[in-house]
């Protein structure tokens, strides 16, 4: 699951011509570190929902990669 999330984030970064990140860690901040804007985050949530059937931003914006993983694990 973690690998998949990392893949999705990199896909968004590449598509937007933003710098791809070789190693994504759970501590990485989605906006500040990975430089995702609101449209990127909207895309992220839709892609994650398509893959796992869960809207990770449903109850408020999540800040880090780890928080996404946590939410998905909780719903497993």
């Amino acid at each position: 699951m973690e690998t998949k999330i990392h893949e999705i984030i990199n896909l968004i970064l590449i598509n937007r011509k933003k710098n791809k990140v070789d190693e994504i860690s759970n501590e990485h901040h989605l906006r500040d570190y990975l430089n995702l804007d609101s449209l990127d985050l909207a895309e992220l949530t839709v892609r994650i929902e398509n893959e796992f059937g869960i809207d990770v931003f449903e109850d408020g914006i999540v800040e880090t990669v780890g928080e996404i993983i946590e939410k998905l694990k909780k719903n497993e």
Partner: protein
Amino acid sequence: MNNIFYTELNKILVTYNDLIIDINKQISYLFISRSSDYYLTFRNIIISLINNTEIIIIDSDLSDIEIKSLNIQEDDINKKINCTFNKIKDEKDLLERIKNANNWSLTIYTSGTTGVPKKVTHTFLSLTKAVKVDNNKSDDIWGFAYNPTHIAGIQVFFQALLNLNQIVRLFQISNNDIYSSINNYQITNISATPTYYRLLVNKSEIFTSVKRLTFGGEVFDENLISPLQIMFPNAKILNIYASTEIGTLFISHCDEFTVQEELKNKIKIINGELYVLRNILGKLEGNDNNDEWYKTNDKVEILSNEPLKIKFVGRINETINVGGYKVFPVEIEKIINNIPGVRNCVVYGKKNSVMGNLICCDIEKESEELNEELIFNFLKSKLQPYKIPRIIKFVSTIKTTRTGKVTRL
């Protein structure tokens, strides 16, 4: 004289004489016509006209659940109406009787953009107000490119019938059959949706018999004009604004509609939305209030006031809200359809909790080289970021509705 009434390539050929003989033989017709056979649908409409009684037309492929949602009484489903008319003598008699069908009504259902089907009942007058009968139209041959249960199809049917023209089926058949039909029957007029034309365009085919192409059903797509003009070099291209409730209201040469004097006091534009005086509509049923002005949900832009020129920019409830920005899918579709290698596309919003909606797009491509990256790069300079589809899916065929419009998910 033995005019042809209806043809399907290599399958059916019915003359007006055959039609009259067939109608004269009938002792009843189904109150709710639900046939997938175009000829039978047309014949049943004509029988009800001659009988001067009601008819309802619904799609043949509706499920029982869908029929229930139309609020049709169970007793009515197989109800037959007895034919009480005297035998029709000839074509002239047929037309006379049709024109005198004062008690006749035809009911159809709109798909309704909110998902709730709306019942609309038309009279002969409300359906034929835009029909032109003229001697110079007597040789017209109509390519029929709509579903017969759709208002646009019914209008084409009446335009052809009242001029005793030939109708050739061009809907829901393969492109090769469409091309052969146009050539074999020397079709002169085609009316269809932009989506239909988009899928028809083929650079290697040229048809000289067609003298008029009409656009209806969806917002006009000017990108189609030049490829269609090459394919149909002798055709004049017209655009029609019509709806299930109103029938045909405006006709223009492009996407600009000049409002005729006689219509000026029958329409008004409030906050960019078109309103139409109720007495020119068919009868509506349901939660519709009965205000004097009918709200069309069509967004228009005023191009000039004297004379009044307007342009349709989309449906009000078809806007997608992306983080407070309103997006018209039609606007984006037009641009994407202009990318080399794109055959057709549909833009829709995907719900999400970050921005309400995210713009997504399904694309039918005709070139293998086309990929997401090329599309993003093309769109970057043409659209604001929130309008650019973020998720692009390549599909083998874009789903269209029964009426040939693209289906937004």
